[in-house]
């Protein structure tokens, strides 16, 4: 993995702004009433984030350290203003439904956070990829959040009817409490996946057939009956035998 794709992975999964760093909660909770709104909000933030990272990275040697925060804000605010006018011009409906949350991108912690923590210290290319990774992570999280809320709260995804006609929408999902419920579940699932211990595969282990494998250091051990290692190995063996169709009576 080179350092550019590492930036993308970092933003999308490892330091996902929504589910891991929990930044930018205000637009996350407020605008995700539907998949389209979530996607729109995410893409607006993505554009501003990439551009602000690039500009700030370009200016990082010029901006004096003492006034860097006001300088970052000026850059971000200018970009947000451009995005806001473009949205009003080309997507008036989406702009209407996102409302005040588009101008509020100025104070989104993700953007200022990436400017301060990354773009002001790294090269333009890396900063751009950092912005893309973070922005995509935010967009995907918001779209999933919006899609789940829209599905349960309205029976549709992106306006298309998914649930059968007889489905009674659980309208709490498109109201504020629903945002918290779905976000909590999303974070729980993400944490569970990320905290799963990585499988360490040694060459010796993969060479063995699990059906005949026995932990070598268990042979002379006094507590091998009660220790989890042996039991685990036996469970694996039994499972493999069952799968082969000749187990059961031997055990």
């Amino acid at each position, binding site marked *: 993995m080179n350092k550019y794709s590492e930036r993308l992975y970092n933003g999308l999964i490892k330091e996902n702004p929504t589910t891991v760093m929990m930044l930018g909660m205000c637009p996350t909770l407020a605008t995700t009433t539907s998949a389209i709104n979530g996607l729109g909000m995410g893409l607006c933030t993505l554009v501003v984030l990439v551009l602000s990272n690039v500009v700030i990275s370009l200016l990082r040697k010029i901006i004096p350290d003492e006034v860097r925060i006001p300088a970052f804000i000026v850059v971000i605010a200018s970009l947000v203003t451009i995005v806001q006018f473009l949205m009003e011009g080309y997507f008036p409906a989406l702009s209407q439904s996102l409302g005040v949350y588009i101008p509020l991108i100025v104070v989104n912690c993700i953007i200022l956070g990436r400017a301060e923590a990354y773009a002001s210290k790294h090269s333009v290319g890396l900063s751009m990829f950092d912005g893309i990774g973070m922005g995509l992570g935010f967009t995907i999280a918001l779209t999933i959040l919006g899609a789940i809320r829209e599905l349960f709260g309205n029976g549709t995804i992106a306006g298309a009817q998914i649930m059968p006609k007889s489905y009674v929408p659980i309208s709490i*999902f498109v*109201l504020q*409490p629903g945002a918290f419920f779905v976000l909590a579940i999303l974070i729980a699932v993400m944490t569970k996946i990320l905290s799963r211990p990585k499988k360490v595969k040694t060459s010796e282990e993969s060479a063995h057939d699990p059906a005949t494998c026995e932990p070598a250091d268990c042979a002379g051990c006094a507590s091998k009956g009660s220790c989890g290692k042996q039991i685990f190995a036996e469970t694996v063996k039994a499972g493999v035998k069952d799968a082969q169709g000749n187990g059961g009576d031997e055990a």
Partner: protein
Amino acid sequence: MNDMIHVSSSPHVRSRMTTGRLMHLVIIALLPTTIFGIYNFGAKAAVVLLSTIISSVLTEYIYQRAMKKTVTISDGSALLTGLLLGLNLPSTAPWWVGVLGGVFAILVVKQVFGGLGQNFMNPALGARCFLLISFTSIMTNFPQIGDSAATPLAALKAGEAVNTRDMLLGFTSGTIGETSTIALLVGAIILLWFEVIDIVIPGLYILTFLIFIVIFGGHGLDPTYITAQLCGGGLMLGAWFMATDYVTSPITPKGRIIYGVMLGVLTGLFRIFGSSAEGVSYAIIISNVFVPLIEKYTIPRAFGYRKGGKKS
């Protein structure tokens, strides 16, 4: 081993009251209300009650099995949550609303926060408010009992006359468990008799509410209005059976007073100044989330200590 020299660590004196016994007593105290509810609203009420009870108990069982915890469905707490939730639903609610409520009460409000003793709000009321927000039309679709399908409180709010005798006995419209004041009071007496609850929280709740409606209700001391406000809606069910929930009410003596007064004021506010005629559920769950704060500021002074926890 010889009992004379048997040494064990404290506590040496134990109450015979266990969690299971306690829950079963509350369930027994709710039986008059339950039976009257089924009598008043018919077999549909029984279906609603069954759906909430079965889904609550099953959710608790499945969750605890899946999370490899001790299965505690035999202590009756899930059963009680299901029963209370069922009593808080209208009899016209379809069965899946009850099931959804039961799952939400146990899974989201209770187990996710750590199970019995850790829930931050009353599971039954949390689920009721979840359903009320989600399915407003289903949850306020009350069956016709007697002359009117409106609940006495709604009629009162609209300025119509109410029959206080029917309200005392329970022959009015409303949720399954809230209509009969007499049946609820019988249950309350059982709870007080066996010292399951003490009078402070429900007593102060009702008293504060009474004072509030006399001052702000706009009817002064009109006995019909006061009786209707006291007997109508979920006040009696909430005050005796749900505000007194051990987990979600303060344990400090001063805290109980604050909690009771807060409940009364909030209920009065919601009923008189709110857009809806009823406010007991929200009053209780809002007070529930204030309980940790109330307890923090009302810790009694320990013997031998000065105010502020310094040793004298």
